[in-house]
C-alpha cells in the first residue's frame, strides 16, 4: 500500500489537482501562442494580420506569466502547508471558493482578450501583460484580474489559518520550513499586490468604465511595477521552495542548511517590493535619485539568489557524495541524471545561473540603457520565468502527478527527453534573443524590420539569429507536446500501489540551528513595509504633484482593430506632445522631490 499525498489528504489532493490542471490548460494555450508569435516575428511563417500579433502577445503574457504560474504555485503551496503541518485545510469549502474565484477571474480576463481576435464582438483587451495606460482594455479584463488576485489573497488566508490552528496545538515548535516559505511568500504577495489593486481599482477600472476622464499614465505604470517586479518572486519563491525542499531529496541527500533557507526567504520578503522602479530606468518623470535607490535594493537582491545558488548546489553535492561521488567536479557524475525530476530541476537551475548574468546587466542603471526595451529583456525573462520557473514546475510535475492522482507516470524516458529538449530549445531561442537585443532589435513589435534601419551583427547575421529563435521555438513546442502527452496519458493509467511516499527533504543543519528571530513574521513584515515606504513615497508624491492624480490631459486609446488608424494618427500627435512633456519632466523632476525632502527635514 502506498502512502502518497492522495492517500494522506484525498480531499486536498483534488484541489491541488484542479489547480494543476488549470495551470496546464493555460500553459497549453499560452505555449501555442508562443510558437505563433515566434514564427510571425521572425518572419518565418506569417498567417495572421500583424495587428493580431498584439492580441496573441497579450494572451501569451497573461496566460503564462499569471495564470499558468500562479495556478501551479497555489497547488504547490497547498500541498506544502498540508504536508509539512500534517493537517488538512481548515475548511474545504473555503479552499474550493478561492480556487473558484481564481477560475472565474481568469475567464473574465480571458474573454475580452480573445474577443480581440474578432470584429464581431465589440470588446478587446490587447493591452499586453503590462496594461500600460493610455492603452485601454475592456472593463471585464480589469475586473477579471481583480477577482483573480482576490482569489490568491483568500488562498493566503487559507494557509495562514492552517498555520494558526497548527500553532495553537504546537506552541513551542518552529514553523516547518515549507510552511515558513509559504507564509513569507504570501506576505510579500499581499504587500506587492496593493500596487496593482490601487492601479486597477482607483484608476484603470473607473477609467475604462468611463467614470473618470483620464489617468496619469506614469502613476499607473509605477503602481504596476510596484507589483510587476515582486510578481516575479511570486513565481520564483515556489521554484526556490522546490529547489530547497525537493531537489536535495531527489539528489539523494539532505538540505544543506534550514537556517540559510529561512534567511533567503526573509530577504526576499524584505527586498522584493522596493525595487520595481528598476523597470523604469528609461521613464522620464522619475528622478535619477529614486532610480538609484531602486538599483541599490535590486543589487541587494542578488544576495538571496547567490545564497540559494550555494545552498542548492551544496545540497546536491551532499546527495552526490552519499551516492559515492568524489573529486572537485567528479561528484557531478554521481547525480541521478536519469531521473527527469532531478534533471529538469538541475537544468532549470543552470539556466537560472545564466539569467543571473543578464539580470545583472538589466539591473545596472547605465548598462540597462543598452538593452532597455530590446529583445534582450525578452531573452532574459524566458530564462527566468520561462525556464527556471516553468521547467522546474514541469519537472516537479512528474513527481507530483503520481502523488495527486495515485497513478504511475506514463513514461519516464519521455519525461527525460522533454526536460532536455526544453533546455536545448531555450538555449537557441533565448541566446539569440539576447544577441538580437544587443544589436538593438526592439521587443513588443510584430514586424521588427524597418526601412532605412539595419541591425549590424558583429558575427553572423540577423537572419541567422531569427533562424535560431524560430528553431528554438519549434523545439520548445515539441517539448510542450511531450509534456502534455505524459500528463494526459498518466491520467488514463490505472491506480498503482507502488508509488513513492509523500514527503520532502530533511536538513543537515535543521531549524534548531536557526535563530528564533527568523520566525518572527511580524518583525519582517514591518521592516518590509518601512522599506516600501522609503522607496516609493517620494517617487509617487512627485509623480502625483507634477502629473496630477488623474493625469494631465491624455488621449485614450481603446484597443480594438477598427481603431488602429486613429491610434496611429493620435500616436503621432501624442508623440509630439510627449516631447514637450519630457522637457518639463526633466527640468521639473528634481525640484518637487527636493522641496518635499526639505519639508520633511524641517
Amino acid at each position: 500500500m502506498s502512502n502518497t499525498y492522495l492517500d494522506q489528504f484525498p480531499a486536498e489532493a483534488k484541489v491541488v489537482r484542479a489547480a494543476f490542471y488549470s495551470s496546464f490548460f493555460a500553459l497549453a494555450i499560452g505555449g501555442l501562442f508562443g510558437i505563433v508569435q515566434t514564427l510571425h516575428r521572425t518572419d518565418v511563417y506569417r498567417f495572421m494580420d500583424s495587428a493580431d500579433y498584439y492580441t496573441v502577445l497579450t494572451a501569451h503574457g497573461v496566460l503564462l506569466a499569471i495564470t499558468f504560474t500562479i495556478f501551479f504555485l497555489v497547488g504547490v503551496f497547498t500541498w506544502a502547508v498540508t504536508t509539512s503541518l500534517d493537517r488538512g485545510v481548515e475548511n474545504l469549502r473555503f479552499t474550493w471558493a478561492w480556487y473558484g474565484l481564481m477560475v472565474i477571474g481568469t475567464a473574465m480576463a480571458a474573454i475580452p482578450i480573445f474577443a480581440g481576435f474578432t470584429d464581431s464582438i465589440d470588446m478587446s483587451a490587447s493591452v499586453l501583460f503590462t496594461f500600460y495606460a493610455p492603452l485601454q482594455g475592456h472593463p471585464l479584463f480589469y475586473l477579471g484580474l481583480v477577482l483573480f488576485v482576490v482569489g490568491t489573497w483568500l488562498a493566503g488566508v487559507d494557509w495562514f489559518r492552517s498555520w494558526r490552528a497548527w500553532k495553537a496545538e504546537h506552541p513551542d515548535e518552529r514553523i516547518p520550513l515549507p510552511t515558513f516559505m509559504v507564509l513569507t511568500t504570501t506576505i510579500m504577495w499581499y504587500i506587492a499586490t496593493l500596487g496593482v489593486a490601487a492601479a486597477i481599482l482607483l484608476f484603470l477600472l473607473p477609467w475604462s468604465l468611463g467614470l473618470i476622464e483620464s489617468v496619469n499614465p506614469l502613476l499607473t505604470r509605477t503602481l504596476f511595477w510596484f507589483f510587476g517586479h515582486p510578481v516575479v518572486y511570486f513565481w520564483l519563491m515556489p521554484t526556490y521552495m522546490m529547489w530547497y525542499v525537493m531537489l536535495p531529496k531527489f539528489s539523494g541527500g539532505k538540505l544543506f542548511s534550514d537556517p540559510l533557507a529561512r534567511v533567503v526567504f526573509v530577504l526576499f520578503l524584505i527586498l522584493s517590493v522596493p525595487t520595481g522602479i528598476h523597470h523604469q530606468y528609461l521613464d522620464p518623470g522619475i528622478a535619477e535619485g529614486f532610480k538609484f535607490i531602486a538599483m541599490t535594493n535590486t543589487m541587494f537582491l542578488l544576495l538571496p539568489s547567490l545564497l540559494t545558488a550555494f545552498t542548492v548546489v551544496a545540497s546536491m553535492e551532499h546527495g552526490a557524495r552519499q551516492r559515492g561521488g568524489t573529486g572537485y567536479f567528479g561528484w557531478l557524475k554521481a547525480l541521478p541524471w536519469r531521473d527527469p525530476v532531478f534533471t529538469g530541476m538541475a537544468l532549470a537551475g543552470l539556466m537560472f545561473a545564466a539569467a543571473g548574468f543578464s539580470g545583472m546587466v538589466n539591473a545596472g542603471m547605465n548598462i540597462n540603457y543598452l538593452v532597455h526595451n530590446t529583445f534582450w529583456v525578452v531573452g532574459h525573462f524566458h530564462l527566468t520565468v520561462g525556464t527556471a520557473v516553468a521547467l522546474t514546475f514541469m519537472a516537479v510535475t512528474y513527481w507530483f502527478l503520481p502523488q495527486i492522482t495515485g497513478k504511475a507516470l506514463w513514461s519516464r524516458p519521455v519525461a527525460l527527453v522533454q526536460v532536455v529538449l526544453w533546455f536545448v530549445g531555450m538555449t537557441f531561442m533565448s541566446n539569440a534573443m539576447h544577441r538580437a537585443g544587443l544589436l538593438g532589435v526592439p521587443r513588443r513589435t510584430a514586424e521588427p524590420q524597418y526601412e532605412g534601419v539595419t541591425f549590424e551583427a558583429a558575427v553572423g547575421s540577423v537572419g541567422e539569429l531569427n533562424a535560431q529563435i524560430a528553431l528554438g521555438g519549434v523545439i520548445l513546442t515539441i517539448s510542450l507536446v511531450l509534456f502534455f502527452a505524459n500528463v494526459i496519458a498518466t491520467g488514463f493509467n490505472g491506480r498503482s500501489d507502488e508509488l513513492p511516499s509523500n514527503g520532502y527533504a530533511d536538513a543537515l543543519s535543521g531549524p534548531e540551528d536557526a535563530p528564533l528571530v527568523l520566525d518572527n513574521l511580524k518583525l519582517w513584515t514591518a521592516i518590509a513595509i518601512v522599506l516600501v515606504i522609503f522607496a516609493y513615497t517620494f517617487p509617487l508624491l512627485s509623480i502625483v504633484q507634477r502629473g496630477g492624480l488623474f493625469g494631465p490631459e491624455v488621449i485614450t486609446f481603446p484597443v480594438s482593430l477598427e481603431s488602429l488608424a486613429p491610434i496611429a494618427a493620435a500616436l503621432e500627435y501624442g508623440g509630439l506632445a510627449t516631447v514637450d512633456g519630457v522637457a518639463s519632466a526633466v527640468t521639473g523632476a528634481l525640484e518637487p522631490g527636493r522641496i518635499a525632502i526639505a519639508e520633511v527635514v524641517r
Partner: protein
Amino acid sequence: MSQSIDESTQTTEIGHDEYDPVGTLALIGLYFLILVALWIFVYFVEFLGNDPTVVTGSALLLAGVGHR
C-alpha cells in the same frame, strides 16, 4: 513515477560535520569567473563600443529634443 531517496544507490551516510562542500566551492567559483568575464564583455565591448541603439537611441533623441 519518480524515485525518492534510492537506498540502493546511497553508499555512505555523510553527516553535518564530515561534509565539506569543495565541489560547490569549485562550481560557484567557476560561475563567478564566467559572470565577471561576461560582464566585462558586455560593458566594455557592447556598451562602450557601440553607438546608441534604435530603442535607446530614440529615447536619447527625445531627451535631447526635450532639453532644447
